[in-house]
């Protein structure tokens, strides 16, 4: 790359434009003026790592003690309110700026009042570009498809071939009729579809519903089903459903009808997705969707959307892969801590396995857990997102200035491992946040005891803020490592580069 091009790149990076995220001055003055909230962007705590001095390797990428963002002032989360959410829509009901939506969710989650509606976009149940009218059609389609799927396995299960496989569990309501009517209001609301502002004649609606029903049956008939592995799944599901969130008001009480809804969703997923089936822990995830939506159909399809990209995390190899990624990440962001855990024989980080499987559901009180779930699911801050690229660009520019344009660099290479999802940074943040306690441990038992003791004691805002800082530091580090790739002799090339096969 020519020097001219690099200069142009630098100008681009430091351009003062209307975007507050690239305007350094604005950001710094803003930070001083407003009370401390998460800024998603600028973190002055970053310490330049001297790559040629190996002793620096013993410092974590983020410094824990001298971090100015961790002053006495409490860090708060800016929860997205009803008005902010409604302003995102145009007159036809399209969610116009998805990026802004995800950013707002990332800043502090969603208020309870609009959570139900917001999640439908957050998890992709509805495309942001859909109009309110299109969504009504989608809702009807989802309804019919789900019930057609459910009918198939229920019919199969009552056939002589399979009926002996599964005993009727005693947590179900006695009257099976009752189960199907838990959400009759859902169906009724679908019967009064409004088109163009005027309510359609019921006859026409009935026809539409009838057509959707047939379409749903055709759809369901095309799905592959595995009742044999399904029956094994059902036996485990029946163990787990009666012990899912039973202290939450939604599932309180004997023979709570919501339990059978949870069961149906899990079974429908398991029998029609034989490659994934049922994994313990799915119950905890579906129950979150069910509590938020209070709708069987929406909870099912949202779960489907949620699983679309991460279903492999629920099979054995995927679980191991995920925890391995956490090990790799921790080695990069806080190697001394990782080494210490290694000495304690907990280098497998198995205590964090549940955090990842359930997206920290048991590590925070229920409400905080929901917030963290939506913040992570916003995918606003991922290594593939614009924000990460911007952070890397800025770092490259700074680094370029630092070395005074010395050797020409390969700015296109990024040594960042894009498999490091934001939730892994949250795990790392928890460990770094509690590193003093963990460093006092001397064996796997004390590490487990310490980490389990954190349950429901951590401050969500602090953890997310920390995760963000670790994330941004990692971005800068990966940008720097690119320089290291071309600047340093092979022997001093840091771990990141070696590990990702760029040499």
């Amino acid at each position, binding site marked *: 790359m020519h020097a001219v091009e690099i200069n142009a790149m630098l100008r681009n990076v430091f351009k003062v434009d209307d975007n507050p995220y690239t305007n350094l001055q604005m950001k710094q003055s803003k930070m001083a003026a407003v009370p401390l909230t998460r800024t998603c962007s600028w973190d002055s705590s970053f310490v330049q790592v001297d790559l040629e001095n190996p002793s620096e390797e013993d410092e974590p990428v983020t410094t824990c003690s001298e971090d100015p963002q961790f002053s006495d002032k409490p860090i708060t989360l800016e929860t997205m309110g009803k008005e902010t959410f409604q302003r995102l829509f145009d007159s036809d009901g399209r969610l116009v700026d998805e990026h802004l939506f995800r950013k707002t969710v990332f800043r502090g989650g969603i208020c309870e009042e609009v959570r139900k509606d917001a999640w439908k976009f957050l998890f992709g149940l509805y495309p942001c570009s859909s109009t309110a009218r299109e969504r009504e059609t989608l809702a009807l389609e989802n309804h019919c498809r789900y019930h057609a799927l459910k009918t198939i396995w229920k019919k199969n299960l009552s056939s002589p071939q399979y009926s002996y496989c599964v005993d009727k569990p005693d947590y179900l309501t006695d009257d099976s009729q009752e189960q199907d009517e838990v959400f009759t209001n859902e169906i009724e609301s679908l019967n009064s579809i409004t088109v163009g502002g005027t309510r359609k004649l019921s006859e026409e609606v009935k026809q539409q519903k009838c057509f959707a029903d047939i379409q749903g049956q055709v759809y369901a008939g095309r799905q592959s089903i595995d009742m044999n592995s399904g029956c094994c799944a059902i036996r485990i599901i029946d163990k787990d459903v009666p012990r*899912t969130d039973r202290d939450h008001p939604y599932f309180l009480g004997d023979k709570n009808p919501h339990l059978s809804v949870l069961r149906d969703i899990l079974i429908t997923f398991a029998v029609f997705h034989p490659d994934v089936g049922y*994994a*313990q822990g799915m119950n905890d995830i579906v129950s979150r969707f069910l509590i938020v939506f209070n709708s069987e159909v929406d909870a099912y399809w949202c779960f489907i959307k949620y699983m679309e990209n991460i279903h492999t995390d*629920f099979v054995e190899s995927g*679980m191991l892969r995920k925890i391995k990624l956490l090990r790799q990440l921790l080695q990069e962001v806080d190697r001394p801590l990782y080494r210490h855990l290694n000495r304690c024989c907990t280098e497998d980080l*198995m205590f964090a*396995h549940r955090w990842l499987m359930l997206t920290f559901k*048991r590590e925070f009180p229920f409400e905080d857990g929901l917030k963290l779930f939506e913040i992570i699911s916003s995918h606003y801050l991922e290594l593939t997102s614009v924000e990460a690229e911007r952070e890397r660009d800025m770092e490259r520019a700074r680094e370029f200035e630092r070395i005074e344009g010395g050797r020409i660099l390969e700015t296109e290479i990024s040594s960042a491992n894009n498999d490091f999802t934001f939730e892994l940074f949250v795990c790392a943040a928890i460990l770094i946040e509690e590193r003093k306690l963990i460093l006092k441990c001397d064996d796997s038992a004390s590490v487990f005891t310490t980490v389990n003791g954190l349950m429901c004691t951590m401050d969500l805002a602090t953890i997310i803020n920390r995760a963000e800082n670790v994330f941004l530091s990692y971005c800068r580090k990966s940008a720097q490592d690119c320089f290291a790739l071309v600047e340093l002799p092979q022997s001093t090339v840091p771990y990141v580069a070696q590990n990702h096969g760029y040499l």
Partner: protein
Amino acid sequence: MAKQYDIIIRLLMVGDSGVGKTCMLCRFADDDISSTHVSTIGIDFKIKTLTIDGKKIRIQIWDTAGQERYETITKQYYRRAQGIVLVYDMKNEESFKNIQKWMKYISDFAPEDVELILVANKSDAYNSERKVSKEHGEMFAKEHRIPFYETSAYMDMNINEAFIMLARIVMKRHKKEIDKQMEHIRLFCREDSDAHIIEKQGKDNNGCCVLM
């Protein structure tokens, strides 16, 4: 820092999903089962310190998820165990049949000198709900020469007895090392009675406390 115990022993809980492993453990370690009605994901851990025959014992108990797909994770913990609690649900015949499978894993992955007990949990069940008779359980245990208990985590029946029995037989198995260790503590370590667990290989001769 002086520790509050002389000896550490490490136990592991295995058995099918939903047989009550976690409930048993919580009853034993915290005397509380109310907060534990959730499925175990992967691996979990609890600790209990008690005195047996005048020795302060710290029992580390590793709890495992029962579902098959967590087995790769849980199997890694077998090799660290000195004692294993095999649990089935007397209301669930399948879980009793599967004890065979768990025994197989133990012989494949646990140390050779590991001690076992067999536990039939949920003895609070009505007679009509019982699917596995006491005789069946006893017979199986006798065949494999391991102690057998019928317990109820719910009613707190036989839970302490079962765990303490396992702790005792683990201690008996490692009596030599423990005696040596206690002697060491008596002679040298009054101030700082750290109990160390040292892996078997070749460390017996360096004068440290050994238990494994």
